[in-house]
């Protein structure tokens, strides 16, 4: 989409800015007119006359159908209202589409009934005025207008107008309301549209860029979408991508989303999340639903999350993750490396291994990089342990105590141990940062955690 002022490729930052176009006003207007002349406004096509080769009116345009794939979607056909009947007209029968009328190639053609096919979008019915995801700008938009233009030998959908000006234009009567007014146009290839809720035909595929998106951005998008669109987007994501995005959502949003999903799907998503985030999500649910979700998980995960749920959410027990790489001090370095490799879930942060004695009591908390690299594989871990001894906190320690021991420790994490000095979990620096941010967000004294549900 190379049009006017606003359609330069949008940078991948949060809010696309208008690029500085140093053109005199008259020249800018000329460029805009020229571009507008090459574009066909889809909104302006509604109820346009459809004429055959001889210029006789056959019917009125009802909708424009495109096949959605990445890139610029080709027009596959038109839906034309002939009398009371909605009929399908293949694009091959169309000679020309301009803002005033649609001309057909002959005087005889097939009119078939309209059927929805997979991957097809009806632009006036499904896309204009509906929510769309702008994957480059990372935001949810509503389409004020869509623009078609001829690319090569095919008519393709190239741009989405999201400006208020174009929305206002459409309320004007007659030709004023139909003229393309490209103001703030997004490249169609960077748009994720949605299928039709309630119809069996779905788009299914999601935009490639969505999979590469930062989880926090994806979470923002999910929060801004309507319920049906949100569900469709979430379903189209891979479980890991989805779980990462969910971890970034506010408690209330996440609660809404998970409780909206079928129990098995919710259980699967929660189980894919990090333990501490999963527990936070579970805490938000009413007891009955929490039970159902836990029951739908595999046994290990259920026991682990159930144990974490027993702690108060404002204490070390509530912040920690219980995923630890725990090894007896008789084990060798090779065993430690094997254990790290064998971790089933992708636990991104911990490079730490917890060394315990025969009774399961904490001996040392070692860092893989510092202490295991360059050491002979058969060395036993008890030969490697030594001061400085790890700083720990009890499960009931509050945020202030955790922060204090973490600053003393200067480490990236702190271990949580029970009364018997047995390690039960680990609090990572990022969880502490999250908790501090939430505490700082607190807008009213009575709020425990702002942003979410009190």
């Amino acid at each position, binding site marked *: 989409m190379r049009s006017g002022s606003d359609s330069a490729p949008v940078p991948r930052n949060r809010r696309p800015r208008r690029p500085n176009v140093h053109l005199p006003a008259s020249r800018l207007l000329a460029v805009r007119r020229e571009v507008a002349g090459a574009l066909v406004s889809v*909104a302006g096509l509604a109820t346009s006359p459809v004429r055959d080769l001889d210029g006789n009116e056959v019917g009125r345009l009802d909708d424009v159908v495109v096949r959605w794939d990445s890139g610029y979607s080709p027009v596959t056909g038109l839906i034309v209202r002939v009398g009371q009947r909605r009929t399908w007209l293949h694009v091959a029968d169309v000679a020309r589409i301009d803002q005033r009328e649609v001309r057909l190639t002959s005087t005889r053609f097939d009119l078939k009934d309209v059927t929805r096919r997979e991957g097809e979008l009806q632009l006036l019915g499904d896309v204009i*005025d509906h929510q769309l995801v702008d994957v480059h700008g990372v935001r949810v938009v509503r389409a004020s207008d869509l623009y078609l233009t001829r690319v090569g030998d095919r008519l393709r959908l190239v741009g989405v107008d999201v400006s*208020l000006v174009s929305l206002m234009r459409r309320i004007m009567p007659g030709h004023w309301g139909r003229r393309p007014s490209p103001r703030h146009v997004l490249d169609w290839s960077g748009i994720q549209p949605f299928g039709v809720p309630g119809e069996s035909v779905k788009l299914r595929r999601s935009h490639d860029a969505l999979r590469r998106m930062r989880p926090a951005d994806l979470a923002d998008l999910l929060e801004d979408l309507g319920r049906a669109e949100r569900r469709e987007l979430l379903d189209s994501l891979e479980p890991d991508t989805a779980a990462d995005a969910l971890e970034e959502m506010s408690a209330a949003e996440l*609660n809404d989303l998970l409780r909206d999903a079928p129990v098995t799907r919710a259980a699967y998503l929660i189980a894919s999340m990090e333990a501490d985030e999963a527990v936070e999500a579970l805490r938000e649910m009413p007891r009955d639903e929490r039970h159902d979700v836990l029951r739908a998980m595999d046994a290990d995960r259920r026991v682990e999350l159930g144990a974490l749920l027993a702690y108060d959410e404002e204490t070390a027990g509530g912040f920690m993750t219980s995923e630890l790489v725990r090894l007896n001090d008789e084990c060798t370095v090779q065993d430690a490396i094997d254990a790290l490799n064998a971790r089933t879930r992708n636990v991104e942060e911990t490079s730490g291994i917890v060394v315990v004695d025969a009774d399961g009591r904490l001996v040392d908390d070692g860092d893989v990089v510092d202490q295991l690299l360059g050491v002979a594989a058969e060395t036993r871990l008890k030969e490697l342990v030594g001061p400085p001894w790890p700083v720990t906190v009890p499960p009931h320690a509050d945020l202030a105590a955790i922060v204090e021991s973490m600053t003393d420790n200067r480490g990236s994490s702190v271990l949580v141990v029970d009364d018997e000095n047995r390690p039960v979990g680990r609090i990572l620096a990022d969880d502490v940062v999250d908790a501090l941010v939430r505490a700082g967000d607190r807008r009213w004294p009575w709020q425990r955690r702002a942003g979410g549900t009190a």
Partner: protein
Amino acid sequence: MTAPGTGAPVAAPTTGKARSRRRSMFLAMAAVAGPGLIAGLSDDDPAGITTYSLLGAQYGYRMLWVLGVSTVALILFQDLGARIGVVTGQGLAGLIRQRYGARAGVLSIGALVLANVGTTTAEFAGIAAGGEIFHISRYISVPVAAFLVSALVLRGGFRGVERVLLALSAVFIAYIAAGILARPDWGAAAHGLFVPTMPTTRDAIIITTATLGTTLAPWGLAFIQSYAVDKRLTPRELPFLRIDVVTGAILTGVIGFFVVIACAATLNPRGLQINDAADAAVALEPLAGRLAATLFAGGLIGAALLAASILPLSTAYAVCDIAGRPAGLDDAPREAPLFYRTFAFVTLTGVVLVLLPGVSLVPVLVGTQVLNAVLLLPLLVFMSGISRDRRLMGKYAARPAVAAVYLVVVALICVCILALGYFSLT
């Protein structure tokens, strides 16, 4: 308000199961409560209190049934609005645009914005009038109120706003007290509530339409839907939300009832004329005692504050929704500029119109009432259309019988507006 289960073990021993179930029901209810109560009670704003005062002062207990009908309509449509919001996750403005096209959306929301600016002006005028009863200059009361309201919304975040608004709505108890202090004739009140009589005069039709229009305010309908969306309620919580909505609507009706009987018991028998709610408060003093008058005026200020915080909010939700821009109390001003700009615009316009010397508010307020009543029709038609749309509502789509009830209310309002038009022209 805290979501249930603060640290309770999942596999807790289930002794006293029934009690814990009741407790969890209560917590679930408490977490959902808000939209219905706030949106309902804010309909008892100064314009509403004025209308109800007039209804009582002019017609005594006779036309209480109009309030009953309005309350039923309020229950139906607030419930519908909340349900549409929860099921679709979208605000009313965006849905109208999506379902009925840009023209319908922009025109109806444009009218809504205009009406909301007018109504906000009416709220600040109510604060000014209420303050003056307590000998506070409007040049102090109005800016202070505007500041408080904006600070609450900008600073409060979603939960903070909700709590303060709920606490604020407690002022409506003042009206119940004022109504009882006026020593009404309960028998006549019951008769007026359940036995409809309709004087066919122009004034009676105006007051009937005004009562319907002020109880079932367009901004309230738009607000409850946006609020349910912003609050992130799920379809699972619909039963609780319905309790919240019905409670809010009935309370709204009950408060209106006490305002009407307070005026019916005191002003009507003596044939006293009033122009607005502040007049009613002043007129009440010699008849029902100083306490009743003070409660009435205090309630007026509280009601105006509640509505003055909701109106700019409701407008901002609607404008962002139709424009497809981010909107939400949990978004920072930088993330949602249009949201906060609309909020500021509506609040400031209201304040300026009230404080500007030499500006007569009467045409603004009358025009707003008319616009609100007329706007109600397309909005209710759109809402009932959306409620039947399976594509949007899925399994929550309204059944034909329910949809027919919606249409009856629409027809009733239509008749009122037509009658009003007829009487105005002849």
